[in-house]
């Protein structure tokens, strides 16, 4: 599978990365080179093989239900580019 300008533009939009037309044009051959290379995986016979789920055999630990965190609003907002009245501020979202 190879990507074209439209696909790269779409992927950039999905990834929320603003790209210029020139950047897209540069990315197309680059991504196609990488994709063509990774596609050699298609030749591996994976019949009956499960996708890896845990690289070291291990299962999920569950924690007890207790309130052990929160109440740290200042720390949460400390690095915010725009914080007001205890909220994060973002450009107005119109629904």
């Amino acid at each position, binding site marked *: 599978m190879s990507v074209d300008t439209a696909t790269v533009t779409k992927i950039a*939009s*999905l990834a*929320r990365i603003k790209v210029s037309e020139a950047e897209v044009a540069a990315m197309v051959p680059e991504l196609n080179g990488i994709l063509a290379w990774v596609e050699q995986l298609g030749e591996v016979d994976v019949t009956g093989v499960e996708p890896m*789920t*845990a690289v070291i055999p*291990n*299962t*999920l*630990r*569950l*924690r*007890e*239900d*207790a*309130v*052990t*965190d*929160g*109440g*740290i*609003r200042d*720390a*949460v*907002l400390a690095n915010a580019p*725009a914080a*007001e*009245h*205890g*909220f*994060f*501020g*973002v*450009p*107005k*979202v*119109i*629904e």
Partner: protein
Amino acid sequence: MTNSAYRIQGATGEWEVVIGLEVHAQVVSKSKLFSGASATFGAEPNAQVSLVDAAMPGMLPVPNMECIRQAVRTGLAIDAQINAWSRFDRKNYFYADLPQGYQISQLYHPLVGEGHIDISLDDKNPEAAVKRIGIERIHVEQDAGKLMHDQHPTMSYVDLNRSGVALMEIVSRPDMRSPAEAGAYLRKLRAILRYVGSCDGNMEEGSMRADVNVSVRKPGEPFGTRTETKNVNSVRFVMQAIEHEASRQVDVLESGGKVVQETRLFDPDTGTTRSMRSKEDAHDYRYFPDPDLLPLVLEASFIEACRASLPELPDAKRQRYETALGLTPYVAGVLTAEVETARWFEALLAETATKQGKGEEAVAKQAANWLTSELFGALNRLGRSLEDSPVSPAQAAELLALVADGTISGTIAKQVFEKMLETGDGAAAIVEREGLKQESDTGAIEAVVAKVLADNADKVEQYKAGKEALFGFFVGQTMKAMQGKANPQVVNDLLKQALG
């Protein structure tokens, strides 16, 4: 139910509506699904946010056992398959209420698989007209934060208190065919969740909300294209949304258009749905297993402990009320529809049986009838719920005991109950204070009977001539003369004697 099938009459004939519901139910837990911040409602903005919830760099999720346990219990309550091996996946999209840029959810391997809920469309007879609604899955996922749009002219404000709170998404099969069925399903699901205690079912606070999938088709044809109306937060609104959406789709199709598969928004003010254009740009959520979390493997013992912790559920309870307590299906249905009602009833039943020295089955009808008529009537008038009933089960049992042992009549009991509601005093104390004790002394009643008959000699003549309907008149006059306190049975007996 074919005889009462819901159909939309279009210009080209009848249309059938096909409905599936995805219900998001907030799991009852102290802390969030993947962080130790509090999951309670209504705190100051961003006061219940951990660094994990705010998706600070390098923060990692650690799952809350209670949330898993509650989802498993919910699954068991709807007879669902519990998947001992499940996984969390990431659903990737960008929005200001989603700090990670993805929601941790379960797409590929949900915790709970196929189950079902039986709904009834006939309150009078819950066992007739039962329809089974399939549940496809229940999965566990994070809630998003909240955006506020009206506090600043050019900015929206983000509050992450809800961010990361545990939700169960309960996905039905497209098995419903009318707004009424959808309403019955939602009410039943809510009842089950509240019985189980896994969700408080509070739709106003958003702890339960539904995405409504609706399509229409000509009966017998394949499914049409569906729309999804998001985040509808009451049973009534769900029903309205379906009605509106179904007729809108019929209009679209009959005017030669096509239904667009899209996300829509319900407007409670107008009862209509509208397209959410802002969310229309092709979503591609790029689900993949969350590499921060390992597979969730449940031991059989964990699942069994969940099963053992389940309470008696509404259907089983209703059947027991019918068979063991001899209640009618209707009354049993009313008493079991809400967990609070059943809880109140069972407390009343136990107190009543103790006070009267009888078995529960012997007092069940008295207790059930009083609760469903007298208490519900009073609460309705007062605009109060069972939880803040001014009368406790023990107080009510005291009142019922006075009726049962003949101390007061049923009529007087109504007066006593009114006084109880007004004053909060006990029934026996009110009866004593107001002198409402029933007169059963034959001598005293005999005298009144004699006077009533003497005062109404003409009517006695008519009665003896065959106008037997007048018997009730004599009873009424006697009771009136005794201010309602005479034992009605004794009055009856004495009147019959005196009238020959």
